[in-house]
């Protein structure tokens, strides 16, 4: 008995239940919704469940790695990720017109997914290394660390992911204490180069933005996703149409309904009540992650945990805003809900890192 108890303790020692609880609840919602979205396909459900168990195992692993050990992996990991991005640009596999995949024998690998963790790790390591004497030169160097992968990913082209990874880098700079003047300056510059960027955008990217501004421009073309998703959500009403009863979903009107637009399926079938429950769960998860961040013992842990937390928020917000028509359509999955093994694994690794940070927190509050 005692042995079992000790084994259980060893297994769960680093698992933060206040983080893990909401995460599991959201994953549960995801599996239930996926069943409806994928036309009750058992195969999809099993495949997602398999990815989930693998992801949880990785989470446990990362929860048991001390933050300082991770810090040592920062430079090699970042270097490998950049090398792979360059590799993709040279020998990548083209899927749907985008060169995003690196063929690795049996499987294909998307290096931009690795960069999502590698970049904040690298930046956090860098700032930790120069803790106490961070000057403007360091911020410039950090900016270069950010721009290189963002440019490579944007070239694939995958503007959505490039922006999100850029954002994760920016979060680290912000939390590391980037001057407000610089931040305001960057935004001002962004507004100024906007028209210039516009001319560099691909046609489909421009179309998405234009359609976002006016979905009726092309109701059967580019605006189709947005319009259909709004119809799905809106017609769900307060209580929803009930599980497996979404007409938009099951009459094939919703595109990408098990991946990026899964939230529309959820919103149609479970209504405003369901949406609110999901929002609250995300807030609990992010709130807990913020507490962990606030109590982190080192600058490295603080920055890493903060970046992971903000990425969670960014993904959830951007996806839900996109589905409900506040943001243009960008390929961002809903964290822990959308179908897809890679995203699930990255997210749980993030949770594992947060748990590790929590385990090595300052024991005395200051």
């Amino acid at each position: 008995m005692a042995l079992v108890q000790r084994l259980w303790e060893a297994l769960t020692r680093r698992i933060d239940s206040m983080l893990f609880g909401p995460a599991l609840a959201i994953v549960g919602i995801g599996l239930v919704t996926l069943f409806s979205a994928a036309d009750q396909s058992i195969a999809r459900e099993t495949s997602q469940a398999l990815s989930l168990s693998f992801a949880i195992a990785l989470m446990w692993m990362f929860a048991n790695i001390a933050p300082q050990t991770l810090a040592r992996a920062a430079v090699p990991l970042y270097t490998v990720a950049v090398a792979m991005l360059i590799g993709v640009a040279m020998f990548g596999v083209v899927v749907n017109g985008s060169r995003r995949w690196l063929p690795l024998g049996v499987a294909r690998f998307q290096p931009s997914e690795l960069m999502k963790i590698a970049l904040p790790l690298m930046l956090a390591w860098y700032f930790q290394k120069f803790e106490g004497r961070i000057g403007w030169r360091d911020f410039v160097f950090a900016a270069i660390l950010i721009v290189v992968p963002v440019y490579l990913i944007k070239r694939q082209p995958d503007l959505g992911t490039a922006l999100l990874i850029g954002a994760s880098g920016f979060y680290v700079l912000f939390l590391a204490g980037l001057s407000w003047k610089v931040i305001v300056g960057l935004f001002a510059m962004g507004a100024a180069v906007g028209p210039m960027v516009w001319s560099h955008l691909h046609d489909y990217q421009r179309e998405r933005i234009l359609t976002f501004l006016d979905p009726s421009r092309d109701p059967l073309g580019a605006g189709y996703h947005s319009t259909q998703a709004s119809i799905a959500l809106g017609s769900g009403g307060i209580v929803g149409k009930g599980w497996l009863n979404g007409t938009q979903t099951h009459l094939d009107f919703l595109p990408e309904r098990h991946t990026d637009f899964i939230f529309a399926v959820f919103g149609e079938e479970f209504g405003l009540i369901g949406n609110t429950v999901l929002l609250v769960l995300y807030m609990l998860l992010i709130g807990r992650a913020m507490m962990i961040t606030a109590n982190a013992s080192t600058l490295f842990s603080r920055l890493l945990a903060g970046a992971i937390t903000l990425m969670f928020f960014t993904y959830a917000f951007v996806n839900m805003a996109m589905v409900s028509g506040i943001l243009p359509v960008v390929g961002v999955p809903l964290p822990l809900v959308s179908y897809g093994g890679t995203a699930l694994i990255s997210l749980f690794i993030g949770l594992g890192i947060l748990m590790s940070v929590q385990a090595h927190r300052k024991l005395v509050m200051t």
Partner: protein
Amino acid sequence: MNAGGASELRNPERDVYHFRRRLSLVAVLVFAAFCGLFARFFYLQVIQRAHFETLAETNRIAIVPIVPNRGVITDRNGIVLAQSYSAYTLEITPSRIRNLDETIDQLANIVEIQPRDRKRFRKLLEESKDFESLPLRTRLTDEEVARFAVNRYRFPGVDIKARLFRQYPFGEIASHVVGYIGRINDKDNERIADWDETANYKGSDYIGKVGIELSYERELHGTTGVEDVEVDAGGRAVRTLRRTPPVSGNNLTLSLDIKLQQVAEAAFGDRRGALVAIDPTSGDVLAFVSKPGFDPNLFVDGIDSANWQELNDSPDKPLLNRPLRGAYPPGSTIKPFLALAALTSGRRTATQTIYDPGFFQIPGQAHRFRDDKPGGHGTVDMYKSIVQSCDTYYYMLANDTDIDDTARFLGRFGFGQKTGIDIEGELTGVLPSREWKRQRFAGKNYRDENRKWYLGDSISAGIGQGYNAFTPIQLAHAIAMIANDGVGYTPHLVKSVLNVKTGEVREIAREPASHIALRPEYLATIKRALAGVAKEGTSAAAFKDAKYVSAGKTGTAQVYSLKGEKYSERHVDERLRDHAWYMGYAPADHPTIAVAVLVENGGFGAAAAAPIVRKVFDHYLLGETEPGAAKDVPDAGDDESD
């Protein structure tokens, strides 16, 4: 965090303080963002809900099934017996019409609408769902189409569509073989669900109901296509977005020879009855007659009640498939089989004779089983017993034979069993035995005496009366087995199946289904006697001067027991007259056709049934047709039956 505060940055506590301040700001932003999302959801799902609900309801893409073209049915020479053609229909989508009657009245000013059309539309309306488009008028003329097109704007929810119609160019001819299609009902839907074909029947209104149309439904139907169309507010298709074409059903080539069929049907005249002609070497059904027939074209559009009542209530029972479902006592046609049984079991030899005084009495009983010929046939051997159809010979044989042995032997020829022909509804008939009688009269309604087998039962059965009841297809199958020296094929109406898309032709398997080991000399005795029947026996008159040698046997099945009175055709009501049988094959030495025919209430087999077989043989073997007996093949485009 600026360059000027460099010294402050060295203070870790101050550092943490600034970090937490920024984090708090982030927390506020996160909370605000989620509140924004909630507001957006509230706007969509509460304030704008009704708007989006309407949009969801009237979403603009309709997925329309495209009904495949049903397979064509042809006879063995490629003459079309059933085909589909496309015709314009005037259709109404009830859910889009406010006042149906008013709309129909207004439409009646533009195209002709009969009370019959209205009645049928009402019936469809009751059976269907509101959003379906229902035909009001079928087969519009080009002029009617043009007239409606001009007025179309006045009638939202009314449209011209093209639908496929089934057409049977030969009308009544071979109607029981080809059968017909009709509207899919609940029972059909269950069948479709059993096949796991529900999706494939989306959009299909019709399904095979009878005959080949029924039994080969799954070959004929084809694969339904799909079209995604954008529809306007009026429900009309604006443009096609995506299209998967349908795959036509398979074409069937029947073994039936429609010209022979016409000759056979014409030979019946107005009489009721059945005829089955089989190629004994393959089991090909060459002709399959059930008289009277019906016009299958009446059923295609949904039969109206007057026609239905006439068909259903007629004492002539035109809807009864007589070759398959008519079970009649075989009468004397059973005699050659019983003689063969006697030879095989050793109870009689070919040359052994009996004396026929004109009747038979069971020793110790007063009842006389009469022979047809008053005064009797005198000395009778086996040859004479068949050629002259001597009853007394078979009364005596039955007296010497156990009924169960007889049943076992006859069973090998397929009597009392389904032949397995490829259309549905076949009856088994009755091959009496002790066991059969025990089961037939089981239960409380009968007493033990009823269940017991009596010698008298055997005597009646010995001349093909009594409990015996066989279908014409069984008799045709059995005589074909004699003709083919004991080798039997399962009779089949479909010869081959053509996949229209791939061009692949599948022949229906033609392996012998049964083989009875018979001593050649016994078989020769029987075949010689059967040839004798046509040469010098009961059917000699019918086959006088035939340019070939045929073999056969007459039979007369009693409908009404006269209790020992002498039967006189003239004095008996037409419907109580005996049924006339003839079975035969030709050429006698190398048969290529075997026929069984029954004429209901036809009287003596020799007079009523044998001449029909003569005409069939003449046509099949010599290509001769009695002038005016067979009509010309009607044009395929003519949908009226002739």
